[in-house]
């Protein structure tokens, strides 16, 4: 088996456990789309064109609440602004690629794909085919998201709400941070981010609480890093 295929499969395998909560999430999204009466084509169209779970649900919520296009688009931008930071992190490993590769990999870059492939890139910095890992992890997310959207459209609400499956979304992201639990500086950064988001959830407009919390936490991270460098 050649190296590219091996790396691609590694990406698929690494991201797979994180897809478990994506299925109920996609089904819930499909159900919301149908409930709001935008029809099967637009419900699936959003999943294909935007391909960003949380921002799709925000868009539907705001649309059904009668928000203006400007508010809707600003909110989608605010919810997805975190991807700018993911791009900055990954750019170091992807800068040598052709533009067509950059377009494809950007389209499929999700939270989960970023998390597993960034880990892989850090550990396999010398591998010239490392971008196949992101292709594998990204398209796995894409495929699972489209299938679960269709399931939601076709089946309706089959997932009982009492199971609290939306909680598994939080658990997935928590599981992605396990290597940070042992580092004191990271714990401080995590605490700042989480606290600001919780306080700002209702007060920061355009659902921008995630990016506001992330930027404040990064400022704290920068201060901690600079203090550390000063000591040396």
């Amino acid at each position, binding site marked *: 088996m050649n190296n590219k295929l091996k790396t691609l499969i590694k990406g698929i395998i690494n991201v797979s456990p*994180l897809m478990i909560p994506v299925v109920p999430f996609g089904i819930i999204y499909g159900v919301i789309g149908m409930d709001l009466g935008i029809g099967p084509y637009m419900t699936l169209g959003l999943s294909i*064109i935007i391909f960003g779970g949380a921002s799709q649900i925000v*868009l539907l919520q705001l649309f059904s609440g009668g928000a203006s296009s400007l508010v809707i688009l600003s909110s989608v931008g605010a919810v997805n602004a975190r991807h700018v930071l993911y791009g*900055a992190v990954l750019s170091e490993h992807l800068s040598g690629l052709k533009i067509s590769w950059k377009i494809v990999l950007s*389209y499929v870059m999700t939270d989960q794909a970023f998390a597993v492939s960034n880990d892989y890139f850090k550990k396999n910095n010398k591998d010239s085919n490392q971008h196949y890992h992101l292709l594998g992890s990204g398209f796995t997310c894409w495929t699972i998201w489209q299938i679960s959207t269709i399931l939601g459209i076709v089946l309706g609400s089959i997932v009982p709400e009492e199971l609290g499956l939306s909680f598994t979304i939080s*658990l997935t*992201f928590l599981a992605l941070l396990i290597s940070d639990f042992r580092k004191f500086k990271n714990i401080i950064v995590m605490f700042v981010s989480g606290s600001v988001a919780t306080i700002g959830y209702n007060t920061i407009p355009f659902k921008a609480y995630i990016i506001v919390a992330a930027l404040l936490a990064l400022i704290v991270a920068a201060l901690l890093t600079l203090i550390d460098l000063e000591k040396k």
Partner: protein
Amino acid sequence: MNWSLIIYAGIITFVTRFSMIFLLKKDILNNKAKKILSFVPAAIFPAIIFPPIFLDNAGTLYLDSNPKILAAIFAIIVGFFSKNIIATIFAGLISYWFLIFFYF
């Protein structure tokens, strides 16, 4: 809902993903910047994790006998010792189910 709104939203989302990958050239970032960017997961994921755990559906702080907080703490303990992603997710989910079905 109209298709142009969906397409604009799609373009905005794509630009957030593509901009830095397209603009940043190799070695443009110094070691200090790289070090700070290594905190990106720690700076973003808690902002996604905390609100649904600590806030109820109405958006008010919910700290008293909240099964999600207890299940998250249990998941953190399992994650800390096992360093295993799947074990962490399932430890949190199973302890959450145990709490809501048998305890609360």
